[in-house]
């Protein structure tokens, strides 16, 4: 065993909070409402604050906004997957009427960057340039044009002549690991992560049986309905402003400052409403290109990608190849050895961080006596791969949970009961990542409740065949984290101010990606201050105007943002109570806060909220506002046990999911409606991964074969399960805001392998070794 310190993180758990003490509290723990009064806003199905605007087509996304003097940009894409640019001739292009700027590797910043750094000190590999003289994937960026109209830019792009020296490409991570073809000057190998719990070698030495299981997962694109779009304006004062539907504006600022060697005070990134994110709107893609074009043209420039560019030239979920060996002794698993290849595509991006996220979680779901995990991220010439909903969890848990399922089937054991022998229990030790405590583990409870709602035992007794149809049932387990603590700084800041009429303004760098994070924050603040959520406005994230936030990823918005909201709301509440005490001339403890007024409970003297705020302004000459930050110290697991029943058509190979139950633990729900919505969307996403989505790359040319919606299909309404039920455990999480945990990513983690297990069951236990499980694959399996 590796020499990890056994000291578990100590978490202060003051409960209930007293407002006097709050400054000392690191982890904000909210009062359990059930002991006191019925919650007013938390736990309610509060509607999205901007829901009606969206429903009426009146919310302006970036492409709906107008900018004065705007130019339109287009990007020239490489038609080869690997090669050197020998020459770029832009002369004809520059003659196209309306063309204002042409950017290539010859006239743009040569500074290497990584589009996903969170701090200038991050040492993820710096492999990208705005434009390079080497192209490394089909659809790589070669040049860009800004013109008066989109048509002119398109025409100019067509007139740029590029001469390449073509290099051979490599498209498989395992091959690329050993290949002589070098994709980056530093080679193809990114840092390997290898960790071991117990003594795996010994477990295999003493095993009486060894069972192997392999799984390949595909490149899947996020497919946000809103295509990538960005506007940049480089003004004469050398100040750069960029607008984009961003999951994190501060990361944009950091990278642009690095690329253009500008002070932070000169770069401003503003978030516009997101038409979907899922991980593909974190980091920079179009920002530096628009910025260069704007600098050259002296006017703001907008680039909106085509659907094909989004699919081929942004990034995808990491495709993976996983090899798992399981050592068995007397029918029990005694050792697990995992080798996990991650295809990074041509740049470092944050691929090497995926294994760190994976090691933190493995022991939150399964507790094997001996386990070794080796993750090998490798560069290839496929499209770039990066963060996507689940950040490596769907892939690793699909492989691991299927390996366990596979052992159960091979040994003739009931797969659900067999799993439970190895699932993690509360306060188990996290051998692979000891700092990240397992703490409360609810997977067994998810299994039990899900089993009951799904009627697992009853379903097993149903007939397996009916005419040309065969049926199968499956279960799949998963977990995802809440933020990036304790291993990394996980910080968000907020300013909360009170308006004269008692309504509030929240200034936060947190980006709501559409899932309703702002609604959650409003509910939390409203609950503490007894202000209806509709009376709380949230400012647009803007590096110049709103406090710092790390970014809307790693399922942190509710967890970190919610805790920060509690912190600032409690401070405002404290101020209000102090002022009320002074005005009412009573003790702090005797003040009762109501929605509209403050009362001294002894003599019933009172002041309205509005009058108190005015009194503070005129008499005390003070403004009620608070700025603070919250740094997360703990990372809870959000669990899910999913169940599916599928029907396979033995003539066509088609799969229909007829019944699906997702039993999730996302803590105490702040908004059950939004929570359900996240899970339903997560299931849709997982079904895509399981059954139909794969960006196909030609093995010889590296061309993407299906970079459009005619060929690349995502689940539509008729692909969703006929009967879909989402249930929650509602377990109060001590360190969560009002007991809540995240759900957005956890929702999708167990889906694909749940479906795969049900299909495998229908096929009489045949192994599934590749996603997506297409009808052709099923027909082949039926024949074999």
């Amino acid at each position: 065993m590796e020499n990890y310190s056994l000291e578990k993180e100590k978490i202060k758990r003051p409960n209930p909070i007293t407002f006097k003490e709050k400054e000392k509290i690191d982890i904000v723990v909210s009062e359990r409402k059930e002991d006191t009064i019925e919650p007013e806003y938390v736990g309610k199905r509060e509607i999205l604050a901007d829901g009606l605007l969206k429903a009426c087509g009146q919310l302006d996304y970036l492409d709906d906004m107008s900018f004065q003097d705007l130019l339109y940009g287009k990007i020239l894409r490489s038609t080869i997957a690997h090669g050197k640019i020998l020459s770029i001739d832009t002369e004809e292009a520059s003659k196209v009427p309306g063309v204002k700027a042409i950017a290539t590797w010859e006239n743009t910043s040569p500074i290497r960057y990584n589009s996903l750094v969170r701090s200038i000190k991050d040492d993820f590999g710096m492999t990208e340039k705005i434009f390079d003289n080497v192209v490394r994937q089909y659809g790589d960026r070669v040049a860009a044009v800004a013109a008066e109209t989109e048509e002119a830019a398109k025409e100019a792009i067509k007139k740029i002549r590029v001469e390449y020296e073509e290099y051979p490409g490599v498209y498989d991570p395992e091959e690329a690991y050993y290949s002589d073809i070098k994709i980056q000057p530093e080679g193809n190998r990114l840092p390997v992560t290898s960790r071991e719990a117990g003594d795996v070698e010994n477990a295999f030495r003493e095993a009486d049986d060894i069972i192997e299981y392999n799984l390949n997962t595909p490149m899947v694109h996020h497919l946000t309905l809103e295509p990538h779009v960005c506007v940049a304006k480089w003004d004469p004062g050398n100040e750069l402003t960029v607008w984009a539907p961003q999951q994190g504006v501060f990361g944009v600022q950091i990278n642009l400052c690095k690329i253009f060697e500008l002070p932070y005070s000169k770069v401003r990134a503003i978030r516009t409403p997101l038409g979907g994110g899922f991980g593909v709107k974190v980091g920079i893609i179009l920002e530096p290109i628009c910025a260069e074009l704007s600098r050259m043209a002296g006017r703001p420039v907008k680039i909106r990608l085509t659907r094909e560019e989004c699919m081929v030239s942004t990034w995808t979920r990491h495709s993976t190849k996983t090899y798992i060996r399981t050592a068995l002794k007397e029918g029990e698993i005694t050792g697990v050895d995992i080798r996990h290849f991650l295809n990074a595509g041509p740049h470092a991006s944050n691929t090497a961080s995926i294994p760190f996220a994976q090691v933190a979680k493995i022991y939150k779901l399964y507790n094997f006596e001996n386990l070794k995990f080796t993750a090998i991220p490798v560069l290839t010439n496929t499209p770039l791969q990066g963060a996507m909903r689940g950040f490596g969890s769907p892939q690793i848990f699909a492989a691991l949970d299927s390996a366990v399922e596979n052992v159960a089937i091979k040994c003739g054991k009931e797969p659900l009961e067999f799993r439970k022998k190895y699932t993690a229990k509360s306060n188990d030790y996290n051998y692979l990542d000891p700092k990240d405590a397992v703490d409360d583990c609810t997977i067994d409870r998810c299994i039990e409740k899900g089993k009951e709602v799904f009627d697992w035992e009853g379903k097993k007794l149903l007939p397996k065949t009916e005419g040309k149809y065969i049926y199968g049932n499956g279960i799949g387990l998963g977990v995802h984290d809440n933020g990036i603590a304790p291993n990394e700084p996980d910080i968000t800041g907020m300013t909360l101010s009170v308006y004269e009429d008692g309504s509030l303004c929240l200034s936060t760098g947190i980006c709501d990606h559409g899932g309703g994070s702002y609604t959650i924050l409003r509910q939390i603040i409203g609950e503490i201050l007894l202000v209806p959520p509709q009376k709380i406005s949230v400012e647009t994230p803007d590096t110049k105007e709103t406090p710092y936030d790390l970014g809307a990823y790693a399922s942190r918005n509710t967890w970190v943002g919610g805790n920060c909201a509690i912190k600032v709301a409690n401070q405002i509440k404290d101020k209000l109570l102090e002022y009320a005490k002074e005005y009412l001339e009573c003790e702090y403890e005797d003040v009762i806060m109501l929605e509209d007024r403050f009362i001294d409970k002894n003599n019933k003297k009172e002041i309205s909220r509005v009058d108190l705020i005015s009194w503070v302004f005129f008499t005390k000459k003070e403004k009620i506002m608070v700025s603070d930050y919250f740094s997360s110290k703990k990372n809870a697991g959000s669990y899910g046990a999913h169940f599916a029943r599928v029907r396979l058509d033995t003539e066509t190979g088609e799969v229909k999911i007829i019944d699906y139950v997702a039993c999730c633990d996302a803590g105490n729900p702040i908004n059950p409606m939004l929570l359900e919505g996240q899970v339903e969307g997560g299931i849709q996403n997982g079904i895509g991964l399981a059954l139909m989505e794969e960006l196909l790359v030609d093995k010889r040319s590296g061309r993407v074969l299906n970079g459009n919606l005619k060929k690349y299909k995502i689940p539509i309404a008729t692909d969703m399960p006929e009967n879909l039920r989402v249930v929650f455990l509602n377990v109060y999480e001590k360190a969560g805001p009002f007991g809540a945990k995240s759900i957005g990513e956890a929702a999708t983690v167990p889906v694909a392998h749940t479906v795969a297990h049900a299909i495998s069951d229908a096929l009489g236990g045949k192994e599934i070794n590749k996603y997506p499980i297409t009808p052709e694959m099923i027909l082949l399996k039926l024949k074999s």
Partner: protein
Amino acid sequence: MLVNIKINGHSYEFDVTKKDIVLNVLRNRLGLTGTKFGCGTGDCGACKILLDGEAVNSCTLPAWRCDGKEIVTIEGIGNVSNPHPIQEAFVEGGAIQCGFCTPGMIITAKALLDKNSNPTEEEIRESFKNNLCRCTGYVKIIDSVKKCSKES
């Protein structure tokens, strides 16, 4: 060439070429940006409008083909101060997340309910076959339409 199109109850005359697409006419000439560009190839439904009562994709529809016809966009269905019941049902039913597919979804729902005020779940699902949503899993969208049908 000159074409006459009635849009959200008003008559307009446009000078268009063969290549002018309805989506661009709506967004760029009239500022009706509620109709979204999601793919431009007729595959996602974000750009749906009602053309003489039928839900059609406007991103592949040449403007000249609409001469003498009537178009209703999401702005014509209702607005924030006077929303249509379907719009309200979507908001209250949690059928909206990022909202980018929403105008197209509501147009499809409107076309369906205008023709069939009491559709079965099957019919609702079928009607959304050309509308992609990547956020909601369609569950709450379908439920919201069901709710409208019962209430109507």
